């Protein structure tokens, strides 16, 4: 029984329950809060794996900015109506298909993890094996075990320094590009959210589907529009 194991289990449970909450909550606000729980659990898991900087960034950026943003939009736009989850306009078959696909996805992923004996890129046997010797090393006993790859952490150099060194030397181009990407995203968001003088609603539109409006009529209207 080690600390890592306990931490892992607790955080894993929190993460899974949080994910379930995101999917199954009827109110979007509840979903957002569940998401916060999950993200926080994942941040702790990062910490567990010697990714200290990432844990911090996860909390600050993801939990502290992105989810807040989402909550703002929910509140601003009043999208917090309770969704009628039992209703599925695309038919129950869609839900079944969705469930099947998700389960299949999980199965395939697990198959990769359990049965994948080699790395795809190099073809060499992967270092991780199930039930074999562990390569896991606790924080206090880090050693330089792979001098060629960038080590995660040493007793002398903290994780953030190493990370910084990698980013600003090997990945400098990607860094600059992502900076530009952020700028573009901001500009785009500003443009799109800009409210023009008059907001013209589309004249003859039916009600939204979520309140259980007549789907057949809406579909027929859609057909008409398409035929035209």
């Amino acid at each position, binding site marked *: 029984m080690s600390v890592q194991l306990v931490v892992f289990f607790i955080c894993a449970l929190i993460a899974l329950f949080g994910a379930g909450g995101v999917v199954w909550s009827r109110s979007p606000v509840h979903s957002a809060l569940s998401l916060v729980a999950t993200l926080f659990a994942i941040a702790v898991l990062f910490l567990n794996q010697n990714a200290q900087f990432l844990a911090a960034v996860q909390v600050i950026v993801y939990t502290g900015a992105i989810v807040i943003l989402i909550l703002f939009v929910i509140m601003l736009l009043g999208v917090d109506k309770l969704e009628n989850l039992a209703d599925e306009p*695309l038919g129950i078959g*869609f839900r079944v*298909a*969705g469930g099947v*696909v*998700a389960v*299949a*996805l999980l199965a*395939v*992923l697990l*198959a*990769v993890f359990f*049965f*994948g*004996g*080699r790395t*795809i890129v190099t073809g060499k046997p992967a270092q991780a094996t199930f039930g074999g010797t562990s390569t896991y090393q606790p924080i206090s006993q880090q050693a330089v075990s792979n001098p060629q790859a960038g080590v995660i952490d040493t007793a002398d150099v903290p994780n953030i320094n190493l990370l910084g060194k990698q980013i600003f030397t090997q990945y400098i181009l990607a860094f600059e590009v992502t900076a530009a990407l952020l700028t573009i995203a901001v500009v785009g968001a500003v443009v799109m959210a800009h409210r023009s003088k008059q907001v013209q609603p589309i004249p003859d539109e039916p009600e939204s589907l979520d309140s259980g409006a007549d789907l057949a009529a809406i579909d027929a209207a*859609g057909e008409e529009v398409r035929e035209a």
Partner: protein
Amino acid sequence: MLNLIWLVPALPLLGFLVLLFFGSKIGDPLAGWLATFMVGAAFVVSLGLLTGLVNQPGNTFQQVLYTWVPAGDFNVDVGFYLDPLSMTLLLVICGIGGLIHLYAVGYMQGDPRYHQFFVYFNLFVFSMLMLVLGDNLLLTFLGWEGVGACSYFLISFWFERKSNASAAKKAFVTNRVGDWGYLVGMFMSFFVFGSLSYADILPKAPGVTQATATFIVLFMLVAVVGKSAQIPLYLWLPDAMAGPTPISALIHAATMVTAGVYLLVRLNPLIAASYGWVPWVIAVIGAITLFVAAVLGCVQRDIKKALAYSTVSQLGYMVMAVGVGGYSAAVFQLVTHAAFKATLFLGAGGVVHGMGDEQDMRRFGGLKKPMPVIYWCMMMASLAISGIVPFSGFWSKDDILAFTWNAGFNGPNSSPLGIVLYLVGLFTAVLTGIYIFRIVYLTFHGRARYDDPVPEDILQDNAISEAEYADGDLEGDHIEIHDGHAHEPIHPHQPGWLMLGPVAVLAFLSVVMGFINLPFGKADFLQSFLEKVSNLELAPAGNLAAIPVNNLQTIVMLAIGTSFGAAGIFVAYRLFKAEKLQELPIVGKLPLDPYNQLVTWFMGHPGRVIFDMVEWFDRTIIDGAVNGVGKVVAVAGEGIRRVQTGYVRTYALGVALGAVLILAFVVTRVLSLS
């Protein structure tokens, strides 16, 4: 000088193009003069080529203009191959063609589509020249098809009458059967020799297996049977008389129908390389044709149809000559036949013209006085065709008979069949005399019958034809009805000198043409000329000098030949010159051509069922398959369209599904499972 060989087909082609685009502006009669000038100029060039050719070593000349089909292994040029054989035919086509063009200038005068006629006529001459001058099988086939097409155009020149159009269709379809044979032969030649050029095929012919050569020759024989109107594909020629008379003269007597004979002579090394029985097959076909056609010719009432059967018979002589190895004799007969048959046709055309488009000989009689020039010209030609010494037909027919007799004894493939064929040819000479002088006597001698009451069946035919013309009256334009107006009185008159001139010239030629190839010693100019054709050297039987005869035997055979011809004339005299008996007794009890009527019935009834089935197959299955491809695409597209639902979530499902599949693929194939 020889470099101008391309000019020979180019001139009629130029005439064709000019008349095609500007003919209606040029009009009657200038269009005709232009066409005639073109062909005449081609003739002059041909004379020049002749002088050039005789001075050429080996007597051959080849000129390649450009590569027509450069398709890798399959390389076909547009080139001209001039050797004595094509030279001879060149002179015949251009010379006789030119004279007939001149005749047509007068004959077609007043026709509303005058210039159109000469458009087709020049195109025909061009095609025929390409056929003869082409240095490869494909170019010859171009000409072959071209003359077939022009024949179709010209037979149905007065297409307002349905039966003319039907006759043209019949000619074309029957020829098509022959074309199929040509195509298969051509394919086989390419397969075996790797080339279609005569320069490649003919020298290599002795090297192929007998079976291969036989295959090619037999299929080419099908083509010849179609084009040269042999049994059993001769049916189209009598019906082709529906076209204007210059057509009958040029196409269906002098040139197009002889294309088959040209082809066989050109391919004689292949014939020599095939099995021994193959030339006999050719000869027998020719013999049957010449006999049956002569018999049928004796009972025809229409003057042009009678001459048509005569043409079929004479073509049979030519083909028989080829079969027994008398290639030069066949060419000789071709030349003389062109002269006297053209005379006969043009003269008959003059008669018909002068009799107000009446063609039935029962309404003729006593025309010697109103049409003396025509009478004497046709008399010359008739004597020639009957084989009376010293007219041209005598020399050529006896040449053929000599070869046939000789094939019974000498040569590698001799067989008593040669004797039988000789006797058939000889007996048919009698029939030839009978039928041709029947025409002469019924038309020119005896009592003038054109004022007699018209026979019933002629009246009915006239009514039918007038109804057909009325049916075909497309825009209410004035349409010339080219059938005898049976209810109008006839005033026979001789046509003008524009039409008589060519007839006279041709009659003169039918007298003297024989002297180009006398069977005595050094006087056989044509034969020695043709001997120098390199490919003919491979067929030594084509050399009359190889026949071991002495002059006495030659004279005896000549005498026999001419006496049989004279006997035929005598029979005709007895039967037809006398006032009262106008027909052979059997006429009226038998149909005029039972085989023809059988085929017509077959095409109409059982044949029609087959044609309808084929048409159904084409429409439903083949078109259905083609259209079906389009339909399948449309239906499939319609189905696949449903993938694009517009719902984002279904797209997401698709992505997820794709991801699952790819991962599954990776897991099972790429990774090794422990």
